[in-house]
């Protein structure tokens, strides 16, 4: 009897629980990993905009930067036949999902009406479209080839912003002589790879494209790649002894506090500086990684809609809101990134944001816009991680540069 009671109450509980998780047709259930203060506030703009149109928002945040945990949850839900309305995704994840399930919603109608084709750069469209159909709405564009320098430390080291590799080394040497850690860095595979992005792009943009986007063996194992690894080894000499495992925001804090000279990190690092009341140009300087001015390695967060028997009204409304210039500006001012459409006014952005937008437009016009390898926009996750393995092993001294280039070829080959 007791057993039956238990079974009964358990099934009632299960029914209540399941009825709660089913969102009504007019709501959007959104899976994302924007849980940090600023990001969550920025997302609120979108929520309120949708609420104004009568579309409810069911939040499904899965914390964890980079979204690997979120992707694991998403996989479980889609496999179980319970896909959310929309999910935040990055780069090749979108392509993988589109290619392997075909269960993504079609946003062509709203895209056509609002002319997305003309305002979203082609390099981004490559990720937002599958078989010529819009399947995702890009929210922002981060670029990864930035260097964040403590102004005071730079002034003490000569005051000139480095524009070439040689000048960079000179500045780093001067900072070392001044008794601070020249390069603030966290020894995690993705951070090593973020620097590697910029270093390879700095050696030559052609190398970047051939090696990371085309996965050309000759480029992956070539002379220039060995040089790129040599530069990584050189940079390794400027980090402190205690760098391994450090989180990126702690590295930013070292620059803010003046304990370290500079950090090479994507533009999300700017948020850390702003939070510490630092003023761009006065307290810190943002420059492109020396030798990569005019080129941009980007990664872009996008909202992918899952197919629910044709795109629902709520999905189209959400896609339209995401792409509205007001939201793009409001969100990206907070997030540190730049808008995914090129026609958004830059009035609300700070100096670094304005520079980011100008660089983005310039790179787009001149064909210098590349997907970031370190952030899953140049090649699929399996290849990306294989490259991570080699880069981080080399950075930690496991191989010399020639061996690393050789290993890169075989690791990429095995992961393809």
């Amino acid at each position, binding site marked *: 009897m007791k057993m039956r009671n238990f079974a009964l109450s358990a099934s009632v509980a299960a029914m209540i629980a399941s009825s709660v998780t089913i969102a009504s047709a007019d709501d959007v259930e959104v899976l994302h990993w924007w849980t940090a203060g600023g990001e969550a506030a920025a997302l609120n703009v979108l929520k309120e905009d949708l609420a104004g149109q009568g579309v409810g928002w069911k939040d499904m945040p899965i914390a964890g930067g980079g979204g*690997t945990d979120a*992707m*694991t949850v998403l*996989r479980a839900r*889609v*496999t179980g036949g319970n896909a959310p309305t929309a999910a935040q995704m990055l780069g090749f994840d979108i392509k*993988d*999902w589109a290619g*392997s*399930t075909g269960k993504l919603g079609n946003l062509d109608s709203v895209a056509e009406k609002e002319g997305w084709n003309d305002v979203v750069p082609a390099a981004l469209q490559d990720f937002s479209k599958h078989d010529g159909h819009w399947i995702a709405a890009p929210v922002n564009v981060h670029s990864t080839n930035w260097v964040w320098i403590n102004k005071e430390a730079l002034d003490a080291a000569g005051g000139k912003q480095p524009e070439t590799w040689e000048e960079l080394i000179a500045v780093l040497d001067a900072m070392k002589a001044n008794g601070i850690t020249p390069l603030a860095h966290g*020894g*995690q*595979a993705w951070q090593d790879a973020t620097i590697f992005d910029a270093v390879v792009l700095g050696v030559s943009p052609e190398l970047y494209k051939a090696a990371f986007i085309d996965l050309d063996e000759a480029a992956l194992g070539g002379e220039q790649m060995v040089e790129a690894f040599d530069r990584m080894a050189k940079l390794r000499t400027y980090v402190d*002894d*205690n760098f*391994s*495992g450090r989180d990126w925001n702690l590295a930013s804090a070292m620059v803010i506090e003046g304990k370290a000279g500079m950090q090479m990190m994507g533009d999300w690092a700017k948020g850390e500086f702003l939070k510490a009341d630092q003023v761009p140009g006065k307290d810190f300087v943002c420059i492109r990684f020396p030798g990569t001015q005019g080129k941009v390695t980007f990664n872009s967060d996008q909202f992918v809609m899952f197919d629910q028997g044709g795109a629902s009204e709520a999905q189209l409304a959400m896609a339209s809101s995401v792409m509205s210039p007001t939201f793009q500006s409001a969100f990206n001012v907070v997030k540190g990134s730049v808008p995914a459409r090129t026609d958004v006014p830059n009035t609300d952005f700070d100096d670094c944001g304005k520079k980011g937008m100008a660089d983005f437009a310039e790179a787009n016009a001149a064909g210098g816009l590349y997907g970031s390898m370190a952030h899953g926009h140049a090649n*699929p*996750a*399996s290849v990306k*991680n294989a490259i991570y*393995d080699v880069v*981080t*092993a080399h*950075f*930690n*001294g*496991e191989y010399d540069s020639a061996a690393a280039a050789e*290993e890169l070829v075989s*690791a990429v080959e*095995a*992961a393809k």
Partner: protein
Amino acid sequence: MNRLQQWLPRLVLAPSFFVILVFVYAFILYTGYLSFTDSRMLPSYGWVGFENYTKLFALRHWNTALVNLAIFGVLYIGICSVLGLFLAILLDQKIRGEGFIRPIYLYPMALSFIVTGTAWKWFLDPGIGIENTFHNLGWTSFHFDWIKDRNYAIYTVVIAAVWQSSGFVMAMFLAGLRGVDNEIIKAAQIDGASPARIYRKIIIPMMRPVFLSAFVVLAHLAIKAYDLVIALTGGGPGRATEVPATFMYSYTFTRNQMGVGASSAIIMMIMVFSIIIPYLYSELKSGDNR
């Protein structure tokens, strides 16, 4: 009434039996099947034979994981057993305050490996941990940065794991020591055997089953080690402390190579079974004799 008594135990066990059948054994079979398919991001069912296994063993990364497991497993089991036995023998000397001391040794086991890993990450961090403390005390030549050194980082995992588990092993051994028949010990004492000799020749040989149990518990903990490594080193520096469990997770869930991940899971299962099955066999056999 009699028939009910006969059926009741089976009836009560049936739900859990079926749940385990499906959620453990069926999924083991499913994983086994996936390891022979071309699954990448989501499960897919194109048969590829042993390709995933050949790929797996060609991966440097997997070899690192296996070597790490060997180092970790041998040291972890060895040190825990020796230390556990030593502590148990000390506690067995009928000392005062045993009831107070025993839980102190046992408490680390109450923590999860995540807590142990995080705490030891801070202790071992040269910037804030032991090294820094000694520097502040004035011993500036003191140097202990294993956790940042890719050649030694795996040993820090051993240190943390031993700290966590040796108390538990001690408790197992202590129970074993207390279980030895007092008559035999008294007889040996009357024959003039020294305490050291009694332990070596009589008590420890009689504790063979306890050793076996301790070995099985520690061995499967070693093979499953995941949370400790994630919390302590995150698999770093570089990939220096990657173990099979972390490898399996990353290939299955973050690298979109589910086939390779599944094959590594199967290899881990074979490792566990090769330890458990002989143990079960010997247990069941001795059960028959009784």
